[in-house]
């Protein structure tokens, strides 16, 4: 198999391996199941967010409101279930989260697809609006006692064990939801005409309109789909944290987009892969979880992530530019 070094995926995979080698060299305990489960656990919410961000980027847009949708959804779901329907099972909480997410996503969809407003401006607006609405009208206090359904989901593990040193490790069942989201999104993008139309719109909106693609319909789907994923991620986040904190999640959106861009998606639209996205998320989670192991202060995290973005996206762009200069 030949490896195409001009692609982000290869580069990011290489950086991940180098990072792990470095971490393992400075702390032999790094290569353990505990590190792996920590990594996977850290990637659960980020991964679902990233899949949503990817599909928006491919369609040629950008969405920064998904964290606010997630926070809104988890807070409202927890509150409503506590107050009115505490008997609902865990899966119904997830379904309800997806429903609320879809409603909020459809607000983005109407503004972007139907009214044709710029995606960044719309989602910046709704980010602020969803968050502000929740904090003003719904509440600011943490919900520390989650409804029974969400508590039950929070305790579900697929792997559980004890390390040699007596500490515990576990992998949350929500990891399966992330895997499912990735597989489903892959199937939509690559196995349905809808997915190909998302790519087509990202490649050229005007061309898409001219061959009769229902651009509005496809864009609307994209923003509702992202809303559904964000709602899901919100419920999972609070179930795992065992608290619904309305101040959580918002602020994460740029890291998520960074992870997706790191994995090779282009801000201009039309390009992006799930492999790249998974690698991008892995790298970001790895950096967040393990810089401490390398003896680097936590405040350097964002610097390190920034450097990775510059190298990870700058290098392929620079190579492409050089190739173009050679061809001219």
């Amino acid at each position, binding site marked *: 198999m030949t490896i195409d070094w001009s692609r982000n995926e290869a580069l990011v995979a290489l950086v991940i391996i180098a990072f792990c080698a470095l971490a393992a060299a400075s702390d032999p305990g790094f290569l353990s199941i505990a590190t792996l489960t920590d990594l996977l656990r850290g990637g659960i919410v980020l991964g679902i967010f990233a899949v949503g961000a990817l599909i928006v980027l491919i369609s040629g847009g950008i969405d920064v409101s998904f964290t606010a949708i997630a926070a809104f959804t988890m807070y409202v779901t927890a509150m409503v279930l506590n107050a009115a329907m505490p008997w609902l099972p865990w899966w119904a909480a997830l379904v309800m989260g997806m429903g609320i997410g879809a409603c909020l996503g459809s607000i983005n969809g109407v503004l972007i697809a139907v009214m044709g407003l710029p995606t960044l401006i719309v989602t910046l607006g709704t980010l602020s609006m969803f968050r502000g609405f929740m904090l003003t009208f719904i509440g600011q206090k943490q919900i520390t006692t989650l409804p029974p359904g969400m508590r039950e989901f929070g305790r579900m593990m697929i792997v559980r064990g004890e390390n040699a040193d007596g500490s515990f490790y576990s992998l949350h069942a929500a990891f399966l939801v992330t895997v499912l989201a990735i597989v489903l999104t892959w199937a939509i993008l690559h196995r349905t*005409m809808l997915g190909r139309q998302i790519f087509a719109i990202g490649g050229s909106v005007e061309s898409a309109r001219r061959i009769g693609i229902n651009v509005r319909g496809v864009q609307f789907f994209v923003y509702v789909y992202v809303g559904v994923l964000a709602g899901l991620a919100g419920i999972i986040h609070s179930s795992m944290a065992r608290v619904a904190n309305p101040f959580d999640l918002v602020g994460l959106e740029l890291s998520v987009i960074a992870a997706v861009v790191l994995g090779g998606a282009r801000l201009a639209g039309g390009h992006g892969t799930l492999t790249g996205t998974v690698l991008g998320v892995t790298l970001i989670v790895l950096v967040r979880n393990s810089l401490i192991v390398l003896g680097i202060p936590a405040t350097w995290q964002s610097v390190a992530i920034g450097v990775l973005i510059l190298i990870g996206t700058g290098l392929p762009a620079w190579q492409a530019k050089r190739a173009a200069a050679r061809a001219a």
Partner: protein
Amino acid sequence: MLNDLVTLDGVTKTYSGITALDGVGFSIAAGEAVCLAGENGSGKSTLIKILAGVEQPDRGEIAFSGQRQGLLNPRLSAAAGIKVIFQDFSLFPNLTVAENIAFSAELGIGAKLVRRARMQDLARRTLERIGVDIPLHAAVETLPVAHKQLVAICRALATEAKLIIMDEPTAALTEREVRVLLDIIRRLTADGVAVLFVSHKLAEVLEVCQKVIVLRNGQKVAEGPAHDFDAASLTRHMTGHDVAPRPPAPLPATAPTLLRVEGLHKTGAFDDVSFNLRAGEVLGVSGLLGSGRTALAKALFGLLAPDRGRITLDGRNVVLGNPLAAAEAGIGYVPEDRLTEGLFLTQSILQNIAIGRLDAHGRSGILDLGGLMDEARDWLKRLSVKAANPDAPVRSLSGGNQQRVVLARWMARSPRVLVLNGPSVGVDVGSKAEIHGIIADLAAQGLGIIVISDDLPELLSTCQRILVMKAGKLVEDIPAGQVTETDLAHRLAS
């Protein structure tokens, strides 16, 4: 008539009070190649958009195969077999050749799932139908322009195409690629597919089309079999007056050498290029796409750094690979694609001219805005740019006038040598003649001008000398008076 594929009758369209089409009517039969000729702004594009269902006419009737149509939309037009190949091809650069070709077909039958094998099979068969070979898995953004166009044609053919409308299909092609395209058009018409060919390259029009329709100011001014027209009569119909080609004035023998290019070399682009340019001379450089002509033009202006060689202007060395130094030395460059390379489209016309003169009007870092704008206004007048309002964005001007704004910017710097890359690409016949007039005037003022073009009539009517490039080398140096168009075409292609 029963075998008429498309019939238009009294089609009228106005945009905010301006009449774009005024009572236009004609018909196209199956397997017929029809040329729609007209200058920019004559209503050609509007007519195409109406046939494609993108725009609705205010009045008038459209019938497909004798069936009167109500309101059209892109889906209905496409379902009726009317396929438009827009000037930008409207392809998806990020998708593969196979997907681009098969996309509309799959969409048309309402497919929900991706059927890769079917799509590839359809793409392969369609490419075979026009007899070309393009890798199916290549991303379209990596293809050369000519191949993109072929992909666009295949996409039209992949669905049931009865009429293919090609908007300026030859604008971006070299002579040889045009031959290939014309052959494909002949194949299509023999197959029973009608072609509506929109162009202002007159020779091609007459060669391939059976019928000619000429639009001027939104009205149909002429219609008839192609053999009733020649280049002169077509031009007369399109412009409403005669545009006589003006052969360039001979160069006085005493004209001093202005620019000297010695052994300019860039690996993979051009190879040991040497030539001289005299004051007042218009020198043509021609060659097929990939012959290195554009790279040479860019190197002259420092946009490309050559590996070795020397350029001297008036005996003084010009620093290579630095556009600012080239401009300082007195070399001006008007790029081929004025839309992407030359202009700030959303900025005003005046600002676009003034941008190159900021230095000259600065006094210890403070800009003399009044003086700057006065100078810009003066050049606007001298190059007769037709603009209602010099503060309007450049985007609002027609192609020919945009080209003039780029020229005006360079003239404001009083250059000694002007390099014009494709000076009249995408410009209509009337504006083209005017641009050629401007070139002659500038040369008469003692400027040295290098015209890089593959528009042979243009070279013959503007240049005193023509250099032919082939695979990066200058292979011939032809005095323009001693060569005919066919002869020149032959020397380029052989």
